[in-house]
């Protein structure tokens, strides 16, 4: 499918703030950030520790609510959603990957990846095949019954990616996905994320503090400092803004 114009806006924040009190002090974790991210973009959020990258990501993920301003995803203002609707949004629209993988240690890989489908009430008979398929995609087909502790960091992060994508979200949010990995394994994970962005047209927003990774894979870099957006630069690397098959999503490729 060939897109004629630029892709529609997938994520928009309008002067979004997230302030909270810590004792006497008011912490402005996110302080008036306005950005537009188009569908299919691969955007890297960069900044020092405490610059507000993760807080912004949590707002977009619907895990947190802004103090003021708006977060609009696919035309829906997240502030207007109820707790239940927000849970549905997280379930169907967003896939999340974390620095510490966040797999549930008592569950096997198969069960971990299956978990979001339980919340989505996917029919039991269909799940196993979908889980196998997605674990195969990240190269873990032989590790279905292993528990997370029995796997390397890279393998855990792959499983976590498979889990994030199992409900076919349009938006992948990654919070320092390579932060706990050595550079070789980190590169493998980045290649996977990049391939999802390219082949599935998935919008990716990734928090990182590794400028080199961002330059290599992201199409655009947002620099944050003290809760504010200080720099918004495109990389010379071109993401699939105008060429990718946006509608082809996870599991729909033949």
């Amino acid at each position, binding site marked *: 499918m060939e897109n004629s114009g630029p892709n529609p806006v997938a994520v928009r924040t309008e002067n979004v703030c997230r302030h909270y009190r810590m004792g006497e002090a008011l912490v402005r974790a996110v302080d008036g950030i306005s950005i537009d991210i188009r569908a299919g973009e691969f955007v890297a959020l960069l900044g020092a520790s405490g610059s507000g990258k993760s807080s912004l990501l949590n707002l977009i993920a619907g*895990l947190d609510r802004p103090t003021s301003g708006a977060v609009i995803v696919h035309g829906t203002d997240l502030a207007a959603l109820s707790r239940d609707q927000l849970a549905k949004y997280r379930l169907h629209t967003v896939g999340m990957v974390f620095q510490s993988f966040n797999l549930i240690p*008592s569950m096997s890989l198969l069960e971990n990846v299956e978990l979001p489908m339980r919340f989505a*009430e996917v029919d039991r008979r269909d799940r196993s095949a979908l889980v196998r398929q997605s674990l195969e995609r990240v190269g873990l087909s032989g590790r279905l019954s292993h528990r997370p502790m029995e796997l390397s960091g890279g393998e855990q992060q792959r499983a976590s990616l498979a889990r994030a994508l199992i409900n076919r979200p349009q938006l992948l949010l990654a919070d320092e996905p390579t932060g706990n990995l050595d550079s070789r394994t980190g590169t493998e994970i980045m290649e996977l994320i990049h391939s999802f962005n390219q082949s599935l047209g998935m919008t990716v927003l990734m928090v990182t503090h590794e400028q080199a990774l961002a330059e290599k894979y992201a199409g655009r870099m947002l620099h944050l400092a003290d809760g504010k957006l200080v720099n918004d630069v495109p990389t010379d690397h071109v993401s699939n803004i105008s060429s990718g098959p946006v509608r082809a999503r996870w599991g729909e490729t033949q």
Partner: protein
Amino acid sequence: MKFYDVADLAVRNLRESVFRNSLTTIGISVGVASLVAMLSLGIGLQQLASRRLQKSGLFDTVVASSRRDLRNFREQREEGPPPAESPSLNEPARKKIEQIPGVVEVYPDIRFVTEVRFDDKPHLITVAGIPFSAKNNNDAFDGMQGSFFSSGASPEVILQKSFAEELLGIIPKPGTDNTNIAALAKSLLGRELTLRYAERTASPSSAASNDGTAYSVVSRQRELKIVGLTDLDPDSMRGTTKARVFLPLNYAQDLHVMQSNQRDTSPSDSPSYTSLSVRVENPNQVPEVEDAIKKMGFNAFSLVDATRSMRQFFAVLDGFLAIFGSLALAVASIGIVNTLVMAILERRREIGIMKALGASDADVRGLFFAEAGAMGLVGGTVGVSLGWAIGRLINFGTNIYLERQHFPPAQIWSVPLWLVLGAIAFSIVVSLLSGLYPASRAARLDPVQALRYE
């Protein structure tokens, strides 16, 4: 989340910390067990008491008598026709009473004072006919020595213990009850007893009476075999006129004994009875049956009201037992709250992950709820079995004690199906209520905070 998934996740979570959850579940079991044991004893005692009372014939028996015999008792005005026109209490009347709904059987009250000879020594004693159905309905025969009558018309006799002592010339010391009934039985069972009585026979001469029937009295005697010896008093409701020698009713009827209060004016082929005992299926039906008999023109009396206060007593007793039994369950429910709150702390991060993956508040709440419910179900089931065993043990112990005291064994413990199901349901409800607070606390967890938790 679908029910299957909630249940599946709940079970796997319970298995993850199996030791702690088992301890909590054991706590619930002990609570349920104490409740079940208490209530099963309460119910058992109540059943025992009402069974005893029912079998005593005090509360399920209506005694019907003819009004003709009360011809001179003017003050005893009852509804129905005046005594003179009132019907005779004969066989057709007996059949008619038997047709009244709720009536199980109607049998004549045959009792007479006569001479009994044993070892050629005469004894004057009241003899009564016992219907064959008393084998199962009168618990005085439950723990007896020997056996019940082999049929309703066999020439056999059952003796009450005190008369057995009299026959053997044993005089028990006042205030002691040490005579060994087994020893009495050994020397009496299978031996013969001579019953001497006055038979009333129809007389061929019709001139003697203006009643239309004449009869003569002939002296007779029969040999009866002693088959049973009962410690209890089968005839307890009769007070001072109670019998101590018992014959099968049909056999006693065939003797045509001249009864002292008999004023029979009917033809001898249709005998009329002094009184009939009407056994009713359920004590509740006694007043209706009583009314129906009175409407037929007979007198009727019963002692039904006494059961009401007994039921009241047991309702209060059961209430107290239930409260004490529930105390342990209340303590156990605090255990559930504690366990689940601990589980929330422990699984804080897991809850955060699930929420980040899209679990709703209801999903998280349902999961904790299901865990509480599962503990309640398992605890309830184990507890009922445990309570059943405890009740059984108490019953066993009590019966050993009763046996030592020469009492017949008694079932003082009963676990009806409703108690089993009710206790399990109660356990689940209590567990769910205990899970209410932890579950909503887990559901309200802030995912950002929970994910930060290490």
